């Protein structure tokens, strides 16, 4: 069988999903926002000239008070303590957000997939151990766990990814385990076993492909939340280093200026992050409605 024929049902499903997305206005808005921010992230160097040598560090504009939006600084500047141009920060912050979220999602997805599938497929002691470890990670409120880990391993992009990964992997492990338990009982798995396929083959060819879609839906829903938590860390002064183009850091200095009526420092980064998260949430919601076979019937 050629690969085209093999993938036929999947392509058909995808086409159906795309057709349904077009029928959902909210999902479409979400998709639009996601595409919009992706374009900004890709074409950032053409929107604002990159800073040399590290484009993710915002060029400084030292003034005693924040400058209001003007021709030179379309979104104004932050003034002390960071002295940065907000327009540059918002545009390049899109890149930072994508970078953080994609890395965190890759790490948690792969880790969750490996552990969840192992636990679900083999069961027994291995399952108990893995699932009890996820319980421990679920015992802590997410933000507190992130705070604890960051305060111990330090600031910077690597630690932020690790801390967020530690907060998220457990829910993927749980999801994939539950999916595997559901699929394991299907007749085709039993058939695969009966004809003597190895465990590895069964997992790779029959179990993983069938669990991926619900994982992807959850990843879409979490994509925005990761950025939101990373920005919360930046806001608290615990995320990336100050001066990096990241939305939370831009907002961090703004609290003290609110009192003086300097509204632009918080407004633009705040709108950027809210609409970014909104886009992913709307897209994720409609994908869940479409790709989840249980609710798909309701849509049809």
């Amino acid at each position, binding site marked *: 069988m050629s690969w085209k024929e093999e993938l036929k049902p999947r392509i058909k499903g995808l086409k159906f999903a795309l057709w349904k997305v077009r029928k959902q206005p909210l999902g479409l808005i979400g998709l639009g926002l996601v595409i919009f921010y992706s374009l900004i992230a890709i074409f950032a160097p053409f929107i604002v000239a990159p800073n040399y040598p590290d484009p993710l560090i915002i060029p400084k504009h030292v003034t005693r008070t924040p400058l209001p939006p003007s021709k030179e600084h379309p979104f104004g500047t932050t003034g002390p303590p960071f002295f940065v141009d907000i327009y540059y920060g918002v545009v390049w912050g899109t890149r930072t957000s994508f970078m953080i979220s994609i890395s965190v999602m890759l790490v948690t997805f792969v880790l969750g997939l490996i552990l969840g599938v192992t636990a679900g497929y083999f069961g027994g002691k291995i399952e108990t151990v893995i699932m*009890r*470890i996820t*319980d*421990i990670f679920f*015992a*802590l*409120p*997410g*933000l*507190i*766990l992130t*705070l*604890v*880990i*960051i*305060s*111990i*391993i330090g600031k910077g992009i690597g630690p932020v990814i690790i801390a967020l990964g530690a907060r998220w992997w457990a829910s993927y492990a749980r999801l994939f385990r539950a999916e595997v338990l559901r699929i394991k009982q299907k007749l085709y798995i039993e058939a695969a076993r009966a004809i003597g396929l190895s465990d590895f083959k069964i997992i790779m060819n029959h179990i993983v492909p069938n669990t991926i879609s619900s994982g992807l839906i959850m990843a879409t829903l979490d994509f*925005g939340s990761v950025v*939101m938590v990373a*920005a*919360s860390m930046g*806001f*608290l*002064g*615990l995320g990336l280093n100050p001066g990096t183009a990241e939305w*939370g850091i831009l*907002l961090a200095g*703004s*609290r003290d200026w*609110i*009192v003086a009526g300097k*509204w632009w420092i*918080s407004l633009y*980064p*705040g709108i950027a*992050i*809210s*609409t970014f*998260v*909104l886009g992913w*949430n*709307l897209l994720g919601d409609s994908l869940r409605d479409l790709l989840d076979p249980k609710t798909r019937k309701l849509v049809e």
Partner: protein
Amino acid sequence: MRKIHIYAIKGFLLSILVIFGLSILVFSLSRSAGDPVAGYVDPYTPLYQIEQIRIKYHLDKPLHIQYFYWLQAVLRGDFGLSRIYMYRPVWYTIQKFVPITIELAIYTVLIMVPLSLWLATKSVKHKDKLIDNITRLIAIAGRSMPSFFFGIVLLMILYPLKLTSIAPIFTFKAITNMPTFDALLNRDWAGFIEAVKYLLGPLIIQVFINLALTMRIMRASMLEELYQDYVTMGLAKGLSRDYLLIKYVRRNAMIPFITLIGIQFAYLVNGSVISETIFNRKGLGFLAARAAMQLDHPTILGLALVLGSTMVLTNLAVDILYVYIDPRLEAV
């Protein structure tokens, strides 16, 4: 023994196991934060003294033995000293900050529960009409708007109106350590207004964030109940739609809602990290953020252990309550 008792005991044992695991996690994090001796010495301490300290606190033993000494101390309530709070014991510091967050939690639940019940009932009654779409909008906004941005916008509104008090001074006698209750108990009306201002900002943030979830869950749960046979039967019997909705559907839909509130109550500290930091309210969230920022490891780790254990036990209590409220589950 009834099934519910077995269930409760099993759950309790499992919770102990999870808390034990949590303590191992916290212990390993605390050891990876650096040599624990560093907390007791300065660069001028002679080497032999460092060794003496190491022996005195059992830090010369292998890690798993150190863990049991550490666990013993923790069980006695000794989490070390809190650097950001004048080197008082961590346990004392946590106790100082707890009432402020509990006060916030009490008011949040008091406002959120009736409000989300009311909004959910309205939006079920007028499904896909204006009010339903408004609640949908609130829910989407609550999920997408970061709490720190919402908090800053709120500060922008409340501060010029003089509706928030960032550094209040309370002159009344502390009884419960929760300012609004203390003011009432002391009949200090000016103090009460000050205490309410101290509460208002974080309270609005908490209600807004949590409302998004509780309202939608309640709505979904009511819609599910609406398609049950007893509703059709009630309608056939001639009961009015509103009567059915409030007397039957809402009551039955309440069960998942109650669980959710229980869990939300425990998660409140999570949200208070941001809201208390913005409004300078000295609760657990504020403490956690401050401790993490200033790299005060004993405080943040002690807090993690206390909060984690509380969460595990709250979840257990909610689980048991769930079976207790809904006897159908016991049969399973």
